[in-house]
């Protein structure tokens, strides 16, 4: 039987308009599912009263026949987006009592279109992590388990709570952010669809800043069409973010089902990394075969600077983070630990408020920006970044419409498996996704198969700047061939 929580977003939208059920019923069904799934730790704050009030307003609009694009659709929002009057923490102790007096542009756009806030979802502290284990609220547990095992697995990160909210049917869609793979890697680990749009497509205003030249907001959904519907509402020019692009937002939903006949798909040889499991290689070839049988043309391409993207990222991102996180000073908002003087107040506050991964990155960032090291590290990394972007530009100039790659170098790992060791081990998770942020391009991850243990695996499509439509068309073609993936309920 189809329950209200297992509908797709598009089905729920149509059901509400056909008066098959009310927005209040839809919200209540999700609030109940959230309550029953607390063991997953996907939400760090549930907002049932807000959800019911927003749903009641949606029902009034639906009754009058004036439904907005997302009227009555319940969503989970990563706790990195400022929500007015609703606690926003970035899952850091340093912001544990922060209640914004303002609303982020992306969430304001969603409420403008009638969406309903279910609650704030868990994430790695300040979005720094690839497993959702660095949150001050504790790790998120994936709804997926290996066949015959009950070992708890990570959902990926940093937007792990948003991915799980969607995968476990706790929300019809969710919003995340992606600085190096924080939407796409958890989408791959949880069998959901996630897209990081082109840099500038969504406003960054009101999103807790990590690395400003890389951060972008994007949606999670259970299929490609739902992701397209959400992105249309989230995107758009915002005068409050000078890096937001002043260009029209297409109706992305129309790209779904559009023929991919004759589209040129690049297969980059540099993404065949040493030690990549045979299952991932097989899935990649399968994806290419699916696109080919849908009419696309495959071409081998070269992106020669690929291997330098991750090391360059681990200079650029911490450098920008060290600068952005300077604002947490114990004076204007957030945690404050007293000290004898102002310097000691800063130092004690930041020592107590930042977790280990955040501290590590702030220190690395401070070092690479410090006097005498700037040219050797930061300037060189920004030059390498130019080369990474140029690699893509050359490929697109040759007529390639999109690039197909694996999403992650493995399926989900166990909680605790990688968090205790060398930090670089964890960073390698983002080896296929980070290039996209470095080049400012759009990238979508679509679930495409399972590994031997039954865990979902994803494929990534990388597009030209501001050509998310092609990604939605190609993603929908992959989905049509590969199907969708849902975990068996155990929680």
């Amino acid at each position, binding site marked *: 039987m189809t329950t209200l929580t297992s509908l797709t977003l598009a089905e729920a939208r149509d059901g509400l308009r056909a008066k098959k059920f009310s927005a209040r019923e839809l919200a209540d069904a999700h609030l109940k599912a959230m309550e029953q799934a607390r063991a997953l730790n996907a939400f760090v704050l549930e907002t049932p009263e807000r959800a019911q009030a927003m749903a009641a307003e949606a029902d009034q609009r639906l009754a009058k026949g004036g439904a907005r694009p997302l009227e009555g659709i319940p969503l989970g929002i990563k706790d990195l987006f400022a929500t007015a009057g609703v606690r926003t923490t970035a899952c850091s102790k340093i912001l544990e009592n922060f209640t914004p007096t303002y609303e982020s542009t992306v969430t304001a756009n969603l409420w403008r279109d009638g969406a309903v806030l279910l609650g704030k979802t868990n994430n790695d502290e300040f979005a720094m992590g690839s497993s959702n284990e660095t949150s001050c609220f504790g790790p998120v547990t994936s709804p997926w388990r290996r066949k015959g095992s009950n070992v708890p697995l990570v959902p990926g990160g940093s937007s792990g709570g948003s991915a799980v909210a969607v995968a476990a049917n706790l929300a019809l869609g969710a919003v995340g952010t992606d600085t190096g793979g924080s939407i796409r890697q958890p989408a791959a680990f949880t069998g959901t669809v996630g897209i990081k749009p082109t840099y500038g497509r969504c406003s960054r205003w009101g999103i807790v800043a990590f690395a400003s*030249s890389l951060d972008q907001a994007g949606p999670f959904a259970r299929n490609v069409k739902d992701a397209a519907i959400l992105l249309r509402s989230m995107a758009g020019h915002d005068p409050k973010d000078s890096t937001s692009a002043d260009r029209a937002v297409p109706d992305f939903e129309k790209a779904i089902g559009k023929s991919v006949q004759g589209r040129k798909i690049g297969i980059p040889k540099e993404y065949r990394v040493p030690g990549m499991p045979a299952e991932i290689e097989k899935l990649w070839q399968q994806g290419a075969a699916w696109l080919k049988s849908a009419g696309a043309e495959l071409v081998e391409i070269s992106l020669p600077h690929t291997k330098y993207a991750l090391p360059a990222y681990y200079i650029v991102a911490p450098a920008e983070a060290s600068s952005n996180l300077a604002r947490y000073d114990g004076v204007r*908002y*957030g945690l404050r630990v007293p000290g004898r003087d102002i310097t000691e107040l800063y130092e*004690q506050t930041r020592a107590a408020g930042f977790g280990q991964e955040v501290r590590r990155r702030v220190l690395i960032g401070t070092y690479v920006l410090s006097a005498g*090291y700037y040219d050797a590290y930061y300037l060189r990394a920004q030059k390498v970044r*130019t080369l990474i972007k140029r690699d893509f530009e050359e490929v697109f100039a040759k007529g390639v419409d999109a690039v197909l790659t694996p999403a992650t170098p493995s399926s989900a790992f166990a909680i605790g498996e990688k968090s205790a060791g060398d930090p670089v081990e964890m960073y390698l998770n983002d080896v296929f996704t980070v290039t996209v942020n470095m080049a400012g391009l759009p990238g979508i991850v679509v679930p495409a198969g399972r590994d031997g243990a039954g865990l979902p695996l994803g494929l990534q499509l990388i597009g030209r700047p501001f050509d998310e439509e092609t990604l939605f068309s190609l993603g929908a073609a992959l989905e049509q061939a590969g199907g969708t993936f849902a975990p068996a309920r155990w929680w």
Partner: protein
Amino acid sequence: MSVDAATVRRIAHLARIAVEEGEVEKLKGELNAILGFVEQLKEVNVEGVEPMTSVTPMQLKMRADKVTDGGDAAAVLANAPQTEEGFFLVPKVVE
């Protein structure tokens, strides 16, 4: 390049994060692991390459030089740990 214990302490002070003496060795190891990883960028020939300043081509917009926001001290101070008479409160800074 690698960092020694003195550099870790100096960086921590620049970042205004108190680090316990017992943590310095561990942090040194972690920072050197990351610095070792990024070392491979030295292989790349960046001769004549412009550093990236903007990932998408864009021109900053001009706007009228007018006050568009502000005048709400209560909202600004709403999350401050300590305030007094509409000001942020900090320990004595100037003797």
